[in-house]
């Protein structure tokens, strides 16, 4: 009895801030050990020290900031365009079944063509410059944001809308005071999916058609067999993506602070 109690307690007091880095640390250790004992050839898996050195090197030369900045800008532009359009379309379809009848079939077909599938066509249409990247990223963010916004607005309890009707809310008041606040969680789920998709699309489009950016660093690192550079780029992509997701989560928590009160 007593033993069970103690062991049950031993699980509890570890805060997530300590649990979260556990797996990364174990992986890093495994990676170090593997590199030291040469389990994989260094051409395939460079040691953490080499990757770190490459990272520092790139940071000093300005390659890192330059390429990360370009990629970040592309993601921000594409994600902003795609998610704003997605929110608008999701709200429009959510509020008006008629709009959904008109638009949804085309949207579904559009969404079913993978983001990568759009690249050749878009290349012919707009070339391989910045518009291509922003369009591809926007498309990637647009689809999940639209779908989740639509589903979220449809899921707002009719009971809530009725309260609005009772107090003679206009469409705008109903949207602003009832529908959007009630749909915050699903909308943010869509935004976070959208952001992840935007990053995926960025790397894909930079792999295929770019001479700068983090995705390009990946290709370049692989082609030159500078695997330390390649892995450094992967690390940065992961860290930036993680940070953006945290920012979204913080914004959502701020909008939902009543849950904490």
């Amino acid at each position, binding site marked *: 009895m007593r033993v069970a109690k103690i062991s049950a307690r031993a699980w509890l007091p570890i805060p997530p801030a300590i649990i979260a880095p556990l797996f990364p640390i174990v992986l890093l250790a495994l990676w170090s050990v593997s590199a030291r004992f040469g389990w994989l050839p260094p051409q395939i898996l460079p040691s953490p020290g080499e990757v770190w050195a490459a990272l520092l090197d790139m940071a000093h030369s300005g390659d890192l900031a330059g390429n990360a900045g370009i990629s970040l800008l592309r993601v921000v532009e594409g994600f902003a365009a795609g998610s704003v359009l997605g929110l608008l379309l999701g709200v429009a379809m959510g*509020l008006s079944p008629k709009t959904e009848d008109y638009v949804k079939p085309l949207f579904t077909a559009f969404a079913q063509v993978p983001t990568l599938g759009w690249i050749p066509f878009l290349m012919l249409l707009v070339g391989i410059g910045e518009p291509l990247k922003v369009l591809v990223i926007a498309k990637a963010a647009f689809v999940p944001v639209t779908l989740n916004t639509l589903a979220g607005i449809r899921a707002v*309890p009719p009971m809530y809308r*009725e*309260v609005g*009707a009772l*107090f003679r*809310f206009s469409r705008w008041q*109903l949207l602003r005071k009832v529908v959007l*606040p009630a749909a915050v969680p699903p909308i943010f789920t869509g935004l976070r999916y959208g952001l992840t998709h935007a990053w995926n699309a960025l790397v894909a489009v930079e792999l295929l058609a770019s001479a700068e950016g983090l995705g390009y660093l990946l290709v370049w690192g692989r082609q030159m067999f500078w695997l330390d550079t390649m892995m450094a780029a992967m690390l940065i992509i992961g860290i930036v993506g993680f940070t953006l997701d945290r920012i979204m989560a913080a914004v959502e928590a701020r909008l939902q602070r009543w849950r904490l009160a």
Partner: protein
Amino acid sequence: MAGQGHLQIDSVSKAFRVNGAPLNVLDSVDLSVAPGEFLTIVGASGCGKSTLLRLIAGLDTEFAGNVVLDGKRVIEPSLDRGLVFQEPRLFPWLTVAQNVALGLLNAGLSKAQKSRSVAEHIALVGLTGFQDAYPHLLSGGMAQRAAIARGLVNRPGVLLLDEPFGSLDALTRARLQDELQRIWAAEGITMLLVTHDVEEAVYLGDRVVVMAPGPGRIAATFDVPQPRPRDRANPALARLQDRVMAALVSTTSEQSPAPHAASRPALAARAFLPEQGFRPI
């Protein structure tokens, strides 16, 4: 702003379509409610009492007959008719004060007038001190008090209450019944309370209307002459309760076995009500 609160219901009938077939929920209901009267409606499930309240609120406008408040035909919701639902229906992302204030969004008052009115009505229902609390922190009784404050904040001529205490425990229910009487006396408005609880109907009402199901119609009306404040243990009230209960029981037993067949689809139809009641925005 507050009207007289004289409510006239003239041969109101209402049918839902269930699987394509019309189902009569209300059949030529006539009712007149005097200004300042406290009228209670009691009936078995599926007798259309909640539907009647929704028609009066203006949430559902597809019916035959007329609902007239102070000479004006009801064709849509109005700030002059407050409604308290069975569930508090507070918005969880707003505090008590913000929830109550939402009722004033279209009242055309200044900011200062609004916040004064909100504070007054929160005080009226005894929630002072909880105005900044979020609904999930409130007990069921407190949440329903907040909902009553929201229903009253526009100073409507009529307050409609749809089984407002149905989900509360007995003690809280009794306390809120007394509070509601006090508020009714203080505000001097017409109140229409729908309930399935005979004791509640008799204790609160100036008049008790018994409705029968399948289709919903008025079966009997009882005057409650006891002066207020009333004593729950008053034997005259107890006798009246027995009579109302007898009338209520006879509404469900007089037609058999048809009433069960009729009242079940009526229940199913009620489940669709929220969808039908508002226009899609």
